Each structure stands twice: as structure tokens, then as C-alpha cells.
């Protein structure tokens, strides 16, 4: 009850807001720029190309027609812009979420984990007071772009849980003989050759093969041990309490090891594979792992 009522500086949630807003905006721009609006968001019966499953926002607007598609694209883009600059508080987040649910649910096969991650992050932004600082709302309220106004901390903890849950269950899904330690550890070696996903010609794997095996083991361990990251963040948040494990984890800066590996994992994924907006969405959630203290005094981390 006490944790749920805790308040803190809103910088982490503001950074999450900016990251998710930009990611949604960038994704929509990429869809529009290659002419996919008619293809992905208009049903074959209305002049489109594929049979779509209408989502509740699309049904409310009259079905998956060209008019509905452009209305939703325009509304979601405008709302995402407002979300990025911090204008309109929760309303901007809610409108972006409704638009995103409406658009991305029409042809689910064309989506991926990035859609689900963005939807979940947007819902957390609806719950959070994310425009307390670094926002137009803050500027209008206080005359300054930054504020130390304190906001409820529980949405940030839900975002942290979301990140840990994603990694942990992704690790549980990895039961392939190529992933599990003790096998050939060739999962990443093969994944980095998938024609549908790779960015570069895979001939570089000739010399990088041993590294891909090490990365396979490290990735699997990182994901399966993700709950320990959550615990290490909790131990840091309650560092004034007693306990040897808590003290040890804080001394070795356990939370920073997970943070560093996670950032490297997503940057590596982005560099080698075309996974859409997944890396950007995931890294936006990393803002929630940082406390106000981390963001204020980056050189004196605990």
C-alpha cells in the first residue's frame, strides 16, 4: 500500500513518454511513406487488398474503409506528436493508444511484438502523470520546461514489471535445443541468417560464429534471470533497509549490469536485424529503470 502511494520526480516517466511518442510517430511515418495505408488498414471489401479483422475503434468509425484508415492515421499521428511534446496529459496518451489499437489490430499478421510493447507502454502512459516535467503542459503550468513536481511512482514500477515480464517469458519460450545451455548454442548464428530479418549479408558470421554462441548463452541467461533485475531494482529502491543480499547486490551494482547488457542487446539487435520499432520501444521503457537520482547525478550512481 505504501509503495503504491509513493511519489517521486516525474523525469523517468517523461522520458518514457517522449520515447514512445517518437516511436509511434516514426512507425506511422514509415507506413505512410511506402504507401502501406491502403494495404494494411483497408479491407478487401472496401477497395483494399487483404481481409481484415475490424477492431473496436475501427468498428466505431464505420469499418475498415479508406476514410476510416486516414482518419485514424491522422488522429494517431497528431496525438503521438502531442504525447511527444507533452501536450494534453493523459488525453494524448489515450488517443494514441486507441488509434494504435485500432490500426495495428486490423492485420495482426503484419505486426509483431513491437505493436504489443507499444500498446502496453501507451496504456501505462494513460495511467501515469507523464507530463509533470519536460513538457508543454509543464511550461504552461509553471512557466518552465522542467519541474520537480512529484508524481505517483506506481506506473513507473508497472513499466519496470512489464520489461522484466517481457524478458522472463521470452526466456521461457526459448526451449529450442539451439538456445538452451548445453546444446550447440547456435540459435543466434541461425537467426542472424534469416532472410526476412537480417540487415547485412551473413558472410561475416564466418569469423563471428564463436561470438554468436557466447551471445546466445548470455541472451538466454539475461532473459531467464530477468526477475533478478526486478529484485535488484527493488533492493536499490529500499537500500536503507537491512539484508546481506540487498547490500551485496547494491555494492556490485547488479541493476547496472542488467541495464548495460539490455541496452547492448537492443542496440545489437537494431544494428544486425530489421525488427521494426521493437528496439526503440524497449529502450524507451529503460527510462523507467532510471530513478530521478540517476538522471540528476549520472556520475554518482549507486
Amino acid at each position, binding site marked *: 500500500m505504501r509503495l503504491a502511494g509513493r511519489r517521486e520526480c516525474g523525469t523517468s516517466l517523461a522520458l518514457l513518454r517522449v520515447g514512445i511518442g517518437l516511436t509511434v510517430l516514426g512507425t506511422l511515418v514509415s507506413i505512410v511513406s511506402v504507401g502501406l495505408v491502403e494495404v494494411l488498414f483497408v479491407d478487401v471489401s472496401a477497395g483494399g*487488398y487483404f481481409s481484415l479483422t475490424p477492431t473496436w475503434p475501427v468498428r466505431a468509425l464505420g469499418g475498415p474503409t479508406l476514410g476510416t484508415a486516414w482518419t485514424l492515421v491522422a488522429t494517431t499521428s497528431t496525438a503521438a506528436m502531442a504525447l511527444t511534446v507533452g501536450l494534453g496529459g493523459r488525453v494524448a496518451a489515450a488517443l494514441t493508444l486507441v488509434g494504435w489499437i485500432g490500426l495495428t489490430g486490423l492485420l495482426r499478421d503484419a505486426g509483431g511484438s513491437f505493436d504489443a510493447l507499444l500498446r502496453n507502454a501507451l496504456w501505462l502512459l494513460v495511467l501515469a502523470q507523464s507530463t509533470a516535467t519536460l513538457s508543454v503542459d509543464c511550461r504552461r503550468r509553471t512557466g518552465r520546461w522542467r519541474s520537480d513536481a512529484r508524481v505517483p511512482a506506481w506506473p513507473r514500477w508497472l513499466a519496470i514489471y512489464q520489461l522484466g515480464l517481457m524478458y522472463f517469458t521470452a526466456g521461457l*519460450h526459448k526451449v529450442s535445443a539451439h538456445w538452451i545451455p548445453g546444446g550447440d548454442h547456435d540459435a543466434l548464428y541461425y537467426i542472424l541468417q534469416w532472410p526476412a530479418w537480417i540487415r547485412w549479408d551473413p558472410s561475416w558470421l564466418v569469423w563471428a560464429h564463436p561470438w554468436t554462441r557466447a551471445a546466445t548463452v548470455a541472451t538466454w541467461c539475461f532473459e531467464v534471470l530477468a526477475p533478478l533485475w526486478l529484485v535488484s531494482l527493488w533492493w536499490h529502491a529500499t537500500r536503507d533497509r537491512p539484508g546481506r543480499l540487498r547490500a551485496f547486490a547494491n555494492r556490485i551494482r547488479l541493476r547496472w549490469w542488467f541495464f548495460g547488457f539490455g541496452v547492448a542487446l537492443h542496440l545489437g539487435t537494431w544494428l544486425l536485424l530489421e525488427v521494426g520499432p521493437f528496439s526503440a520501444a524497449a529502450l524507451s521503457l529503460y527510462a523507467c529503470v532510471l530513478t530521478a537520482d540517476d538522471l540528476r547525478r549520472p556520475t554518482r550512481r549507486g
Partner: protein
Amino acid sequence: MAIPALGRLRRRWPQLRLAFIAVHLCAVTIAALPTTAGLTQRAQWTSPAAQAEFAAWAKRLSALGIATDADTLRERAWGVATSWARTHAALRRPFVPYYACCGTDQTWRLFAAPDRFPSRLGIDVRIDGDWLPVYRELSGTYDWRIATLRSHRVRGISHLFADTGDRQRLGQLASWLGQLAARDFEEATAIRLRYVRGPLPTSGQLVRGELPSLQPVTEIVQVIE
């Protein structure tokens, strides 16, 4: 009357907030649990990738003293997978409205099983009776509409429809690409989507430059009107 109700709600807010957080955590955790819902079609269990996976696991379990073979293991896994799919669906049921309204549904497969037999897309257009190659995945040479075809939204469906043998959707894909081809090649009379598949090279094969041969698996032709 409304004001006392609002006051009561405000007084109860800490409890209500806690209840909401608990429900949210339950909902997202259940949604994210490993799912086998996408594996309840027999055909998926006999794909080359699945067969290779069961063979690897059977070998590994046998080495650990649990004697089994790929077929036995597949049958057991099928039973567990279908049973868990039913249980998971039942666990999810109370939260379905929350998933639909608030976008909280989620599954994190994230490259769970590397497909060692992925398909590759090639596109040809027919001009003056001859098929001319215009697109070959990762060829670097034939790159017609590459920005569109390599978009993360299009790559997913183009491979999924071929891998699942969904010819109706492949036809819809060909119909769309046919319209694009008609704009770019005025004399084109048809478009052909060809998928080829072969095992990914092992590290030894890659070092020796021995690339496994690719076999055609699916082909669809769409007349351009």
C-alpha cells in the same frame, strides 16, 4: 448526493488503486505466459524446422539417460501443448475485455525457435512472354520496390503466408504487388511470387563456402489486367 459519493471514492482510492494494480499484474502475467495456442495445427509439427528440433531434443534426452526418439517426443509434446493451450485460454478468459480495451494483451516469443529452413521470396514479371526477375530477397541486384518489400510490416506477412501455405492470402498479396508492377512496368502482363527454401548453412559449410541448394516451395501467378 454526488459529492459525498466522490468523497467516499477519494477515501477509498488507496484500496481501489491497489486492487487495480493487482488485477493489472495478474492480467499481464497470464497473457505473457508461454503460449502454445499457435501450435495447435498438426502441420506445424511436421515442418522441417520442427522435425530438426525434435530430433535434437531426442538426442539430447537420450544422452541424459531418458531414452526416446523424435516421433515419441513429438507425440508427448503435442499432448502437453494442446492441453496447456486449453488451460491458458481458460486463464485468459476473464481478462479478455481488459486486453481488448486497454491493449494489454501480450506474447513474447521473440525468436523462440530459430527456423533452420527459412523461405526466400523472389518476384518476376512477365513481359513479352518472358519472366524477368525484378526482386530477389537479399540479392542486392534485383531490388524492385525494396523499401516497400523490406518494410517490417510487409516482410512478416509475405513470409508467414508462404510458410503457412495460406494461398488465399498469398493471392491477395500477389494482387497488390501486381498493381504496383502495372504502374512500374507498363508492358507487364503477369507477376509471379516464388518462394524457395533450403537449410541454413552450418558454420563449417559457411567457412568452406558450401551453400546448401534451395528448392522451390510455393509459387503464385497473378495476371495483371
